[in-house]
């Protein structure tokens, strides 16, 4: 076992299906013990990227490194993978299939049986242990699928749209577990197109669009580098300052509140000072961070 700073590394990876290029010259690094968000619109190449990480398909060009090594069967067992396309054996009992999935990760015997009990307890599904999967509701099945991905206590957890279709209570439960994994020193890769969710949970993000990387970095850095200053303002007077095109580029009014986008390079402090000088009474002056959704929309539509 080697511990390196990066758990997964993609080095100039390209994957084509016939004429179609699913992933084009993609390089990225997933840092250990952090939650990494793989973001992008549908069809951007997220799932193909993930499939190369879990060794389902091999890249045409470039290399994939896991835990500091070229990917192999042993490193495959250290991954827990919850694909977007997921199901259960309908006629098999819950405990039987969880043991089967564990065994495929070379996790067997008494320890595996105990893990099944522990996880069913945690997910509040103990009474379903010997029931067939087809008797479970959709939401319960999703929780079982999640258990199947984590039962062997993987060092790397890859979740492709894990929360789609879950009710808020179960979503909170899974989120809690993901954060516990991180606290236990595991790495988590998250694929989603829900920016709201990514913003709440991810430490690092990578934005993919049209099979190429658009941006990558820690959430904080990404937001900071997205150097836009938006000020949310509620004030009486000071209209002259907002109309000064040398400092404010656009103004959006919502009821009595104003959202002002400042010209690049203008310090918000200067604006505040000018407003005060103009005699305006200020009730609210707040710097608005750009949210991931805005960044996403601008980057994706800006690329066209």
């Amino acid at each position: 076992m080697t511990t390196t700073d990066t758990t997964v590394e993609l080095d100039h990876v390209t994957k084509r299906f016939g004429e179609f290029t699913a992933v084009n010259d993609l390089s990225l690094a997933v840092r250990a013990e952090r939650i990494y968000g793989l973001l992008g619109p549908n069809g951007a190449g997220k799932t193909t990227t993930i499939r190369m990480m879990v060794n389902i398909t091999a890249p045409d060009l470039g290399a994939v490194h896991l835990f500091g090594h070229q990917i192999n069967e042993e490193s495959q067992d250290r991954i827990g993978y919850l694909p977007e396309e997921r199901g259960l054996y309908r006629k098999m009992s819950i405990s039987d299939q969880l043991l089967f999935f564990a065994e495929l990760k070379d996790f067997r015997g008494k320890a595996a049986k105990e893990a099944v009990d522990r996880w069913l307890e945690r997910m509040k599904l103990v009474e379903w242990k010997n029931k067939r999967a087809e008797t479970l509701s959709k939401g319960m099945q999703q929780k079982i699928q999640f258990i199947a991905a984590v039962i062997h206590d993987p060092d790397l957890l890859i979740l492709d749209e894990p929360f789609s279709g879950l009710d808020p209570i179960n979503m909170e439960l899974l989120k809690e577990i993901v954060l516990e994994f991180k606290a236990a020193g595991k790495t988590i890769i998250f694929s989603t197109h829900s920016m709201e969710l990514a913003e709440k949970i991810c430490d690092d993000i990578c934005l993919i669009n049209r099979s190429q990387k658009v941006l990558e970095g820690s959430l904080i850095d990404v937001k900071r580098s997205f150097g836009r200053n938006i000020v949310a303002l509620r004030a009486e007077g000071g209209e002259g300052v907002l109309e000064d095109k040398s400092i404010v580029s656009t103004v959006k009014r919502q009821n009595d509140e104003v959202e002002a986008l400042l010209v690049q390079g203008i310090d918000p402090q200067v604006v505040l000072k000018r407003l005060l000088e103009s005699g305006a009474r200020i009730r609210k002056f707040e710097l608005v961070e750009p949210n991931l959704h805005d960044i996403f929309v601008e980057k994706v539509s800006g690329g066209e």
Partner: protein
Amino acid sequence: MRKLLTIIKREYLTRVNSRAFIFSTLLGPIILVAFMVVPVLIAMMESGEATRLAIVDQTGKIFDRVRDSIISEASEASEPSLPGGLPMDMSKSTEERASQAGMAMNRDFKIEKVEPAGRSLEDIKRELNERVRREELDGYIVIPSDVLIGRKAEYYGRNVGDFVSSLQIEEGLSRAVNEQRLADTGVDQSLLRELSKSVTLNTFKISEETEVQDSGGAFFLVLGVGLLIFIMILMYGGTVLSAVMEEKETRIAEILFSSVRPFPLMLGKLVGVSLVALTQFAIWGLLIGGFSIYGAAAVKGQGMDLQLPPVSAASVVSFVVFFLLGFFMYASVYAVIGSIVRTYDESQGFLMVAIVPLILSFYLVFPVIRSPESTMAFWASIVPLSSPVIMPVRIVSQAVPLWQIGLSLLISFGTVVLLTWLAARIYRIGMLMYGKRATIPEVWRWVKES
């Protein structure tokens, strides 16, 4: 390797533990027994009552001969049709043998003589017709006085469509007439019977070491190999198919492929399902074997001597091997089909195509038996898909060079591996492109490209 075992274990246990498996295992022999017993019961019902026959003998001297001849015809006719020419106890009385035969296809007869007593033929016929109508009689024969020269007689009956009866009557009459004519020329009766016994041909195969009497029993065994493959494919082909399609339909494939390579997955499925099939057949085999021993003992108790056909151990081993390979080969063809199609309905057309080589192999069996040395026989026993049926046929009909048997086995084995690999490959690529329907050229391109 451990993962392969995990796959096999799951495929096997989930199927063997299913209600469907237990049900069909128990029901199978019952249906089989029903198939074997019911026709016999029906036949016994038919022969329960003897055919009542009256004979109008206008020659005045041939009646006894005709009666004996028809009754013994009823017993003897059944003997050559016993499989393998099993010896039958000849010391038994005619009545006993006749009643034994009655249990098979042949009719029992109750024959009465009609005395003319001075009446005209028309009157006799009118009276007999009346008796037939009243169901006192099933039919009557009129033997004209010139039967020895004209060789013609007339049969009047309620049921002239019963060809078994009329055939027996015809045979019996012919023999009686022949015997009468010979007797008229002064030939001794007992000598006559002795002379007209038929010949039994025992066949011996000359192999490299010894002469062994192999042909009869072994031939049935060989056809059994082909038939078993056929039955197993008909019964379990669909299971192989649904096993391959299971993860596709339940969308588990991707989870599995993140843990195990496609080839072990596919191989595991094939082996798992095959073990289920073999388990079921073994259970049936034991049941049938048990019944047979019981049945043989019962038959022996009645004084019949049943022998198992002599077959060499080497033949049995090679048949088992070819049977297994044959089953695996067709099962892997089904796996390929399962990996291409998306739904069970889509597979139906393909399934018929998959069975065609097997049926063609059956057609080849008889030409191969007649000339096992021919080029056609050689290739049919080497080429995959027909070799598991044809090679055993050649093995019993001639001494096949070892290298040919080896080659055939090797090619069969290679075909299984290749087809499994192909199925795995198509399956994986199909999964990566889910949502898209695969056409044959597309499948071919996938296989070549990746």
